[in-house]
């Protein structure tokens, strides 16, 4: 009897809102907090880089080629004598912008199509899912290269193609998550009430698959960053002289034995960003109650 502490007359405290609950769960995960801090650090740095960068990131200096890290150049310089610290700080801006927009696009179309297919079901669902399977089987990098070679490598082309390709996987995951809710009575209740399909998808299903969508968005973002950097590495992403990590790695990889810093620092920046997104996504999934091991990918 000793442990019963709450007085009967005190009003029942309103339980914390759902997102507050998720946040308090997230705070208990050390890896998640590390990931989130690194992620926020990266985003702030990318945002403020033009003002924070100690040197001009496009200024070439023939007298300072391939300098090792020093007081003046913390990360050293590249083969054109440009300050690597400034370039590394600036190098994420394009990648983060393009992939963020691309993720938004992927999640929007993938989510909407996935939810609709899950809700509609039947033959439409069966046939369109086979189309999705076929699209998934396409080696995306080659196809991406083809599209870019045909249309050109403007920012919006990259956003659209990346958004399209990464949305295909989102369709599968969101459809799977939706199938769990479609047979529930609240969907049936909405149908008997005579709500339109769009209302059911947006008002009834979306709030329930939002968790899965959010975690999926974080995962797709990490993958897309890698994809974007690969494109840049191959010369199909960012146009020089705009600094970009993928491009920087590509430019300096020939000199890796004499100037390893020129490859290591951009690679480090890229990998810490991707790892931080993955850690955050993992912790978020656990905090929300989705286990990533169970999610179909």
């Amino acid at each position, binding site marked *: 009897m000793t*442990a019963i*502490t709450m007085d009967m007359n005190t009003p029942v405290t309103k339980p914390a809102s759902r997102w507050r609950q998720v946040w308090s769960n997230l705070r208990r995960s050390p890896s998640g907090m590390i990931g989130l801090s690194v992620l926020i650090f990266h985003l702030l740095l990318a945002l403020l880089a033009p003002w924070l960068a100690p040197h001009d990131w496009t200024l070439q200096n023939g007298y300072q080629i391939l300098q090792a890290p020093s007081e003046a150049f913390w990360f050293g310089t590249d083969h054109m004598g440009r300050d690597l610290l400034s370039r590394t700080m600036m190098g994420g801006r394009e990648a983060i912008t393009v992939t963020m927009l691309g993720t938004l696009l992927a999640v929007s179309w993938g989510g909407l199509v996935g939810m609709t297919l899950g809700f509609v079901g039947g033959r439409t669902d069966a046939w369109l899912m086979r189309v999705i399977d076929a699209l998934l089987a396409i080696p995306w990098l080659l196809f991406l290269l083809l599209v870019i070679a045909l249309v050109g490598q403007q920012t919006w082309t990259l956003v659209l193609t990346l958004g399209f390709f990464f949305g295909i996987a989102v369709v599968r995951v969101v459809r799977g998550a939706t199938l769990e809710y479609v047979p529930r*009575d609240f969907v*049936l209740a909405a149908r008997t009430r005579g709500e339109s399909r769009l209302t059911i998808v947006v008002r009834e299903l979306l709030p329930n698959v939002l968790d899965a969508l959010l975690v999926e968005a974080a995962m797709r973002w990490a993958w897309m960053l890698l994809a974007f950097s690969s494109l840049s590495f191959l010369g199909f992403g960012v146009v020089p002289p705009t600094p970009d990590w993928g491009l920087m790695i590509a430019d300096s990889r020939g000199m890796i034995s004499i100037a390893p810093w020129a490859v290591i620092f951009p690679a480090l920046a890229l990998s810490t960003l991707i790892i931080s997104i993955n850690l955050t996504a993992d912790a978020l999934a656990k905090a929300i109650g989705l286990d990533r091991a169970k999610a179909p990918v």
Partner: protein
Amino acid sequence: MSEAQTMNTTMTPMLDVDNFTLGYTNAEGRLVSVLRDVSLQVAPGEALGLVGESGCGKSTLALAMMAFLRSGSQVQNGTIRFHEQDLFALKPKMLQSLRGGRIGLIPQNAGQSLTPTLKIDAQLYEALKLHSDLPRSQWRQRAIELLQQVRLPAPEAMLERYPHQLSGGQQQRVAVAMALAGQPELLILDEPTTGLDVTTQAHILELLRTLRQELGMAMVFVSHDLGAVARISERIAVMYAGEVIELGSSHQVLLQPTHPYTRALLDAIPRLDAEGLPPSLPGYPPKVGSITQGCAFAGRCPHAQPICSEQDAPLAALSGHQVRCHLAGELKRPASDSKVVQLPVQSSDEPLLMLEQVQISYHRQGLMDALLQRPAPVATVDGIDLQLNKGETLALVGESGSGKSTIMRAISGIQPARNGQIRLKQDDLNLPVEQRSKALKRRVQMIFQNPDASLNPRHTVFEILQQPLKLYFGLNHDACRDKAAELLSLVRLAPHYLDRLPGQLSGGEKQRVAIARCFAGDPDLILCDEVTSALDVSVQAAVLKLLKELQQQRGVTYLFIAHDLAVVKAIADQVAVLYQGRICQVGPVSEVFTGHHHPYTRTLLNAVLEPDPNHQPVIQGDDCSEQYPPARGCAYQRRCPLAEPRCKEQLPPWKTDGGNRIRCHLELDALATLIDRPQMIKAVNA
């Protein structure tokens, strides 16, 4: 019953729960007690029933008797001893052999507790491997014996089946067989018959009774259904807010209840022999850990005195049974009839809903069927003629698979009828819901069985109520909010509930919100799909009363699906008994329940359980459900004890007795005399 008591005192108890207090750490990080000072004993061969509303700790106690604690909980005080051994001091290895071996568990939902990908034989062998010394070669023989023991027909064939190929009752029997594999001395049954049909439930309870006599096991039977507990238990412990508040022989507890809670719980059960609605129990059980001192029931007790909320109630021993109440022995039990709620019916002769020769089939003619000229299977629902007057309640009754829900889906336009006419006054309800006009959609609304599933867990109560208001009336946000608050007051909920999520409400509150949502459209016809079967009895009575009151205020018409005949009797004006999608009997409630019965109606009525240890349900036939309705003749031909050859050939004619119509070949007088004869109970194995 004196036998049971002497057994208690003379023999050492097999299971001894001694001052047991169990706590868990809640979301705010505080240790709260779910079980408080529970003391009870189970003697060898004795059956103890644990009853109470949901959330009062019955299942927690039952699982603690197997030393199974949910994660995060810890023993705060006291012990549970099994044969003098403290269960919580045992090593994991010992516990493993004890669980499923000497202590067996039968879970609530056998369909979910059997592995769907393993055949029945593999599941039984698993139990035998772990909990018997039999060599592998004898497993099959033993498995067949076990299936025979639980009266499953054709045990050899049964071994080769997968769980989904069995009916709910058969699955439950397999679960019983698995529990018996370890030859347990103590069997813990956690709501073993909840969710089963009345007839199946009666069969399973009968099986458990005979097994106990044959094998001499002790049983701990957890249920919220006092009728089921009455069938099985010799002693009953009534639990409330984690405490045992009344403990005694089942005769004492059920027939002379002393604690006000037990009395209220018993009064709230609708009964076949009572008129009108049962009185409901006001309020809800306290939240875990919210009671610091005094009697936990004081807040809801009609006899509460100042002392009740100030001092903990002592466990008083009264003529052989224990009661935790300050006023024990002083309270006189008022005549329960006076408390029954009677509400006048305001029906008119104006027909609202009409069904004429409705036929519904889930089968879709495929290309191959057409090419091979395969005949379409017999329709799931056929020949439904019903008329429902404005302001009345019509109940559809039958076992699961009898087509009740299918008819409701046809009326709501989810699964349109293949043939026949469904009309709401002059409007055509044959149209699928997408093609109906907005006004027509508004006039037909539906309330679902389980409010947990029918309310979107991510919407606040306001958002839930807003949707129909926006859809049907195009109200803006503020107007919706005013109207939503009005709707909540209609279902007796305060406006501050508007911003709650369904997860923050109790079961009864959720169902009230669902009712409010359905009244948002200001409907003419409301389809109620088993609206109270997921609720506690005390809440059920309140919800039934609310529905009846709303019917009077708003003049709405209900089409009510239920499998509980006592509930139907309490709320409905007309009743239609369905078997395999065909109507067997239809008429006014008073005449159907008291007049002539169709053989199937009689079977259903016989299987009804009463919270009375002397009441004995009569069971007949077997409980195997049929997959398809017969192609010709009477729908009930295969299970009918009175079936004649012509029943298999010709569709029986309607026999009329006043408003009571029965579809049977036998003359009404013949039905009456034949049915009153003692029934032959067909042995399932024979």
